[in-house]
């Protein structure tokens, strides 16, 4: 792949001899702001046709008829793909043999199981002709009543939640803990269905050449996508080349290849030429995942000192009728607050919706807003300041498992953010801070947490005789700045200036970099890059220290250091040699090395690994109208080693703004009868605009973690939502005295 990424040169890293830790601006920023970055849908191979989905208007039933003739008769329409003529697949799209394999709707039959499910694909010479062709299909349905809402079907206990976590966990005796408590609270909170709504819709340009397939499509997990497509089509994974240099956001919805993307490949197969398929915004509300709604009940007991005696967190959620993804909301109570007794449990219903999926902080976000609200209520019930209450119940070891934390600088986060915010001046009671203009002001806080996850990744490093380096890994940049952060790790791993390193990613023909998800991509692919660098440097060192002509000859056990394109004798830095000299003498044009990034099972067994943070929010509420504005957000986060503070801060900002969105804005309004989503567009599906977030601050707290991985990286992509959503809700309570019990908080909830 040829990408012209020109580096923004920041001299700081030259002075300090390290790229890691420097606030470099994005390598791809220039391409993006000038429109030169080529996203999947920007590709137009010669002879390409356009495919448009026809989607179901009902939630449940079957397609009785489609007017294929009318569509085909429309000028420019080339073909209509229906269950009748859809090319065969090697694997049943309804088969599932691992929890990351989701059932897809690929026109395998005429059944409809959610609104916006694909019922046909129209392929035409122009987008307009395909669109009109899809409209001309005029489907008729045999409809059955839709099952809608958390009370819309019989509930059951799922076999597992999230990815394989048991639905029920407990330690200690919660009932006894509640019984013995001096103070108790019980509260129920509801969260709405949300859709990822990445700016870039799911798009694919697919071209077959015999049994080889070349595709441009956004993917958060190239190797997994490659494997899934290979399985569906019965071809070898290496016959599939996926290019995904840039994603316009993913948030989990591009983690697994979605049905419509596969339909684009099928369409290309059917017509025998390249096909482009781009989802319309409203078509993203169904086949591409979402965050399921929840109803969570928390019960807590506290002793006379405000120490928790029991936490019981129960969550009800929903999945589709045909597949399993259960938002693990209650698991949020496993890691944050010390309590001798903790119980978490889940129940679920099956509804006529698309299957829910990982959505930025899946479980953590939904669970956090309920848990942090309940903690606020518990503090109130004890007459304690919410920060003091949290410190009183600070978990020195992971509450559910008793494991020590690999590192936990949460106390520092509380201190730094609360001081910055001015929390000490907060009155305990609500409605005590009308401002000079008459608005009700409220201050609230929440604790943020997210596990430090690692997957598996590989990377390949090359050193060339001209002194430059190459690092290759099939990593994915969703827009978070991975191109830059990984290049920084690569530069340090190779002992080169970052401008000397050619960094390649975003393509499936590179080493498998695992998935960009779970906030684990930087740690996982970063470790692979780091280790690949170390491997190639080790080879180079062997060449030098083993050769009599080298000033490094016989460096022996003392070893060498790699820095600025030279190897130095560790015990005598006056003796050094450049990479080019070493390779030239050995008569080699280049050498390479490989590295992997994997979690270390022993340290994972011994330690609980989480990033933490503290978020403080100020809201103003109009006393008569209930309109809310978050006027100030201050968060402090400790998430291990920071590769690039500028990018990390951006992740925190984005997460915190998402938290505001969770508390105040986001909701898929679902018709209670039809199950159709009524606001499947960005005008009416609200996320915050700039005016909603006038002041957001993210502070970085230093944290060394020797156990998570050699680089000490945790992850920063999702944590910002947790803590923030609850902080906003708690601030609304503090402003108004009304406890928000459903999210997003609506004007009518505060009108009183």
């Amino acid at each position, binding site marked *: 792949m040829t990408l012209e990424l020109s580096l923004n040169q920041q001299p700081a890293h030259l002075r300090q001899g390290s790229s890691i830790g420097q606030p470099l601006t994005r390598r791809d920023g220039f391409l993006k702001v000038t429109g030169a970055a080529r996203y999947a849908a920007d590709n137009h191979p010669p002879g390409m046709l356009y495919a448009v989905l026809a989607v179901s208007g009902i939630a449940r039933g079957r397609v009785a008829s489609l007017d294929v003739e009318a569509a085909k008769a429309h000028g420019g329409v080339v073909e209509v793909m229906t269950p009748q003529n859809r090319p065969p697949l090697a694997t049943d799209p309804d088969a599932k043999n691992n929890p990351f394999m989701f059932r897809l709707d690929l026109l395998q039959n005429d059944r409809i199981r959610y609104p916006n499910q694909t019922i046909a694909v129209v392929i035409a010479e122009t987008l307009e002709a395909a669109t*009109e062709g899809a409209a001309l299909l005029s489907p008729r349905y045999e409809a059955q009543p839709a099952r809608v809402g958390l009370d819309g079907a019989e509930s059951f206990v799922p076999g597992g939640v999230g990815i394989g976590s048991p639905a029920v966990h407990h330690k200690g005796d919660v009932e006894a803990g509640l019984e013995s408590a001096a103070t108790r609270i019980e509260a129920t909170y509801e969260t709405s269905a949300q859709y990822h709504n990445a700016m870039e819709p799911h798009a694919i340009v697919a071209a077959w050449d015999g049994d080889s397939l070349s595709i441009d499509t956004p993917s958060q997990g190239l190797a997994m996508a490659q494997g899934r497509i290979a399985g569906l089509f019965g071809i070898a994974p290496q016959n599939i080349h996926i290019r995904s240099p840039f994603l316009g956001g993913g948030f989990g919805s591009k983690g697994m290849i979605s049905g419509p993307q596969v339909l684009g490949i099928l369409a290309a197969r059917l017509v025998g030429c390249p096909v482009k398929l781009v989802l319309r915004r409203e078509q993203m509300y169904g086949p591409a995942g979402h965050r399921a709604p929840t109803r969570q009940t928390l019960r807590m007991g506290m002793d006379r000192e405000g120490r928790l005696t029991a936490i019981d967190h129960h969550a009800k959620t929903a999945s589709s009728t045909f597949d399993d993804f259960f938002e693990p909301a209650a698991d949020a109570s496993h890691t944050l607050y010390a309590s001798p007794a903790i119980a978490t449990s889940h129940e679920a219903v099956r509804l006529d919706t698309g299957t829910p999926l990982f959505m930025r902080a899946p479980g953590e976000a939904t669970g956090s807003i309920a848990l942090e609200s309940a903690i606020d209520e518990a503090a109130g019930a004890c007459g304690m300041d919410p920060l003091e209450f949290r410190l009183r119940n600070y978990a020195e070891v992971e509450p559910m498992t008793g494991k020590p934390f690999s590192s936990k600088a949460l106390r520092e986060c509380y201190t730094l953010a609360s001081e910055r915010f001015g929390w000490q001046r907060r009155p305990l009671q609500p409605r005590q801070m009308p401002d000079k*203009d008459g608005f009700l002001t409220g201050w609230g806080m929440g604790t943020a947490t997210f596990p430090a996850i690692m997957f598996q990744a590989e990377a390949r490093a090359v050193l060339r005789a001209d002194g430059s380096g190459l690092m290759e890994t099939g990593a994915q940049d969703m827009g978070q700045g991975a191109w830059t952060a990984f290049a920084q790790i690569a530069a340090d791993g190779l002992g080169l200036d970052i401008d000397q390193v050619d960094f390649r990613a975003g393509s499936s023909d590179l080493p498998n970099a695992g998935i960009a998800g779970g906030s684990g991509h930087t740690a996982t692919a970063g470790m692979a890059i780091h280790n690949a660098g170390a491997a190639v440097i080790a080879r180079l060192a062997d060449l030098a220290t083993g050769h009599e002509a080298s000033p490094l000859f016989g460096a022996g056990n003392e070893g060498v250091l790699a820095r600025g394109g030279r190897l130095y004798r560790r015990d005598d830095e006056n003796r050094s040699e450049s990479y080019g000299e070493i390779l030239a003498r050995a008569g080699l044009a280049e050498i390479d090395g490989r590295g992997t990034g994997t979690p270390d099972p022993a340290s994972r067994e011994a330690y609980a690994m989480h990033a933490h943070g503290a978020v403080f929010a100020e809201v103003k509420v*109009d006393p008569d109208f*209930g309109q809310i504005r978050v006027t100030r957000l201050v968060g402090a986060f400790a998430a291990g080693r920071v590769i690039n503070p500028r990018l990390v801060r951006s992740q925190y900002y984005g997460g915190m703004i998402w938290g505001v969105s969770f508390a105040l804005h986001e909701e898929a309004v679902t*018709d209670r*009868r039809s199950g159709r989503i*009524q606001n499947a567009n960005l005008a009416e599906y609200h996320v915050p605009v700039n005016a909603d977030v006038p002041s957001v601050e993210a502070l970085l707290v230093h944290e060394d973690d020797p156990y998570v991985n050699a680089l000490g990286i945790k992850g920063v992509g999702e944590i910002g939502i947790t803590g923030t959503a609850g902080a906003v809700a708690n601030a609304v309570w503090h402003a108004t005295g009304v406890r928000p019990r459903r999210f997003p908080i609506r004007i009518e909830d505060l009108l009183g």
Partner: protein
Amino acid sequence: MKNFDYIRPTTIPDAIAAAAEPGSAYLAGGTNLLDLMKGGVTSPERIVDISRLAELNRIERLADGGLRLGALVRNADLAHDPEFARSYPAVAEALLSGASAQLRNAATVGGNLLQRTRCSYFYDTASACNKREPGAGCDALGGENRLHAVLGWSDACIATHPSDFCVPLVALDAVVEIEGKKGRRHVTLEEFHRLPGETPQRENGLEPGDLIVGVRLPAEAASFSANARYLKVRERTSYAFAVVSAAAALVVEGGKIRQARLALGGVAAKPWRARSAEAVLLGADADETSFVRAADAALADASPSGDNAFKIELARRIVVRALMSALAGTPGRLPALPASPFSSIPGVRHDA
């Protein structure tokens, strides 16, 4: 998208002749029409693009002291015209509270009047909608309708008119200039939009081919400039339609209300002129007690059409606040968050 003819007439009579053919639609800024076409909500056979008719793009002062806004004047250009904003501050504030900067740059005077409802069932072609398909039924009834009408609705349709611009305009007795096959006629904005009754598809008095050429503000409208405000409650601080909004304009002398204008937005199928409230205000003391009585009068006939009873109480409170804000006086310059409660503050002391 269905194929259509595209015509770009160079004169008004040509435009009217072209648009009089069945299945025609005028294209102005296109910010509403094109969305509706892409969604399959409307599918005109002929687009008559009037966007280049320069004569419709003028703001003219009239001999009688009134002002004439050409139908194609862009919402942003109008709001940012300093003289316009000085004379009709509530209108400028309403314009700037609508949509986003990009949309306001494209949206026009005529298009704004004629924008369709945001009722989601109207947009969702899989749902039944009497407005889209007369006689089909109304899926908003009994559905997700917390933002629907509380005034003037019928069992056939409970949709609202979403415009901000129209709310102060109707309060200020604006007049719509229409040119059609039979020549030019003038209709007050108050009469221009219709309530749904049995025929929600008939939203206004336009006949095929009728072109809005302009909107007139009578001379009197500028007399409120010292005490005129627009206030809009919405579900985020900017870039959202009104849950409920109100325009209030007063002339106060010696503590008594000499003239009063009040209109509500987001509550009915038309911008809602609250004449009964104006009657309460006329001659009354300019104080909160009178404003509360006016609010009660304005909402006396309101009733929920679904899960939206809260909008009635909200509307009352907005009316009171809008009148308080108007009484406090028009700010020297437009607030940074136009029409937001976070600018025109509860105590009405100053602008944020």
